[in-house]
């Protein structure tokens, strides 16, 4: 028992106390719980502090729907050490009714969103693809598949994704297979969205299809994994990503346990932050919790940075030099002369609210 805990025990023993801010009664049980939380947090901070020196503190969030996030999120992510994000194309919560909506969406995540991220010192990349939900609208799906080739060769497109299955329908299967062929044609890695319902069998079917189409597992990330799917995904040679959801599904502690058990090889962590309840700081929190679990720095770095860089760097569109030492033309046009290496602050003109006019 810590000194503080001793002191609390002596002061209150089994008596209750009044909360200093709202006056409500705090039971001894509640007090102990508060204390546990405080110590937990302190432990995390200490572990994280041990982690940072020499590591550069650089993080990649390889799955983030930034068009749904605010500038506060960008600021917080940059402050937490995120140097690059990958924004995969997905649905928008609301079904789209025509191909023009997709065109504008793809143009947004290769255009304006890249500019927006750059203002906060974050390099923005994306994956382009037709998501399985909207693949179920056959006519629309055909039109989108027609327009995809225009985007797949673009600068900063690091994968074809998110694709895969949602309800595992025939139409989803059809769009999935067509896009695997496109990925081969454009020499792109694939980012897989695994279904949330019927996950285990859906994930297995996804891998079966990829292999039936002759796609190399070493060029493919299977995302949204859990304890039930991790083993087979790793065994079959895929990259295995975990999305950290704040309350349900995969949490930070469970990820740490998985890394303890399977090691850091081919394991990736992401926030998949979007319009729903999600945490854009999930990657840095995961790093902290892994440190608290006693995982060594090299292991953690591999999971929160190097693995994503390796697989999403396969087509040459995402390189470490992009943020450490960007091309002069990118510095001029997008990054206001900043590079992480030189430690310049990103240019966000605090005194000019008119910058986006």
């Amino acid at each position, binding site marked *: 028992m810590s000194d503080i805990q001793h002191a609390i025990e002596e002061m209150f023993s089994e008596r209750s106390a009044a909360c200093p801010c709202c006056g409500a009664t705090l039971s001894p049980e509640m007090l102990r719980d508060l204390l546990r939380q405080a110590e937990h947090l302190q432990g995390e901070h200490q572990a994280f502090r041990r982690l940072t020196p020499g590591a550069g503190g650089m993080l990649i969030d390889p799955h983030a729907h930034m068009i749904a996030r605010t500038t506060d999120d960008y600021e917080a992510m940059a402050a937490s050490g995120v140097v690059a994000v990958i924004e995969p194309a997905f649905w928008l919560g609301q079904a789209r009714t025509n191909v023009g909506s997709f065109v504008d969406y793809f143009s947004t995540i290769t255009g*304006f969103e890249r500019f927006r991220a750059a203002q906060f010192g974050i390099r923005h990349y994306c994956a382009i693809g037709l998501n399985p939900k909207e693949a179920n609208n056959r006519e629309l799906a055909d039109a989108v598949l027609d327009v995809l080739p225009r985007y797949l060769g673009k600068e900063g497109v690091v994968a074809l994704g998110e694709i895969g299955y949602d309800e595992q329908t025939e139409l989803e299967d059809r769009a999935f297979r067509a896009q695997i062929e496109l990925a081969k044609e454009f020499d792109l890695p694939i980012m897989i969205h695994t279904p949330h319902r019927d996950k285990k069998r859906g994930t297995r079917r996804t891998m079966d299809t990829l292999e039936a189409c002759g796609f190399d597992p070493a060029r493919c990330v299977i995302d949204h994994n859990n304890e039930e799917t991790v083993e087979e995904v790793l065994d079959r040679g895929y990259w295995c990503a975990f999305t950290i959801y704040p309350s349900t599904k995969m949490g930070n502690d469970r990820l740490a346990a998985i890394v303890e058990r399977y090691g850091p090889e081919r394991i990736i962590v992401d926030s998949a932050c979007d319009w729903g309840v999600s945490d854009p700081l999930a990657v840095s929190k995961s790093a902290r919790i892994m440190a608290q679990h006693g995982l060594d720095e090299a292991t953690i770095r591999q999971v929160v940075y190097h693995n994503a860089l390796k697989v999403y760097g396969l087509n040459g569109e995402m390189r470490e030099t992009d943020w450490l030492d960007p091309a002069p033309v990118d510095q001029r046009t997008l990054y206001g002369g900043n590079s992480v290496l030189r430690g310049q602050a990103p240019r966000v003109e605090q005194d000019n609210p008119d910058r986006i006019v």
Partner: protein
Amino acid sequence: MNDRHRDSPPFPPDLPDHATASAWVHWQASRSAWQDLLQRWLNARTDGSWYARQCQYLALPTEIGRPMDLLFRTIGQAPRKLGKQDLALNDAERENANALQAGFNASRWSVDQAARVGMILAASSRLPNSTVFAALLDELANHGDIQEQIALYQGFALYPRDPALLRRAGEAIRSGIRPVFAAFALRSPWPQAMLTQSMWNQMIVKTFFLDLPLWPVQGLAERANENLGEILCDLIAERTAAGRSLNPEIWRLLALCPGERGHTRLRQRHAGSPAGSHEMHALQLAARESPHADIRSLAPAGPSGIAFSDEWAQLTQWQE
């Protein structure tokens, strides 16, 4: 390929048809000279043969395949195939460029940007007129990533001076993406030659809102107008009331086209600025360029033949 979203309604050209048609023929002649120029620049810096091959494909009047998809693909691949290093033109190359097209300034272009502009020129060789060319630009811009848009708008320096392109130009001015706006507005002879007065004024005022320098805009004196002077007076008042700073280049513009209020503003500011201050330097520099004798009299006689752009570049700390 799905063609539905490809056909944009043509911008109604203001010129009579025959004038537009002959302007297009004339432009096609210059286009090949610029393409040769870009090819030479690229040969000297990178694998020019890949670029040359792509341009040949793009110029083929092919029936097969998807010519637009080829253009999207080659433009997309340009940085990967050729690199993104600066063109870093030497003096001879700069002069050469300027001789072919007055005001053409590629001093901040990169290799991939030059290639992308070259590819657009190559693809336009098989087009019948400016209206179709404008539709091609629309298609590219609407599907373009950020660096592709930047290259596309830099290319305006070499595009036909045809009203059919004004609608696309308007999108550049409207853009909320600062480097996209800058690619169109700065270091290009096209805006001053083509924009309507209201478009010109919007563009100029927006450079202040985007914290961009003004001196790289070509034709400031030629396009100065009283209407702009009025807008600037209001902007100065607005910023002053809010206690916010202003790019001092605004004095230069105001001195070029002061209405009654502008005259008063300039004289007041001149009287209120401490000698030797940054602002006084700006005001005096501005006054020297003014077409109005009473404003010129605010500045001590300077050396003749002063290179104003250099002076303003040094004076303003505003970075692009």
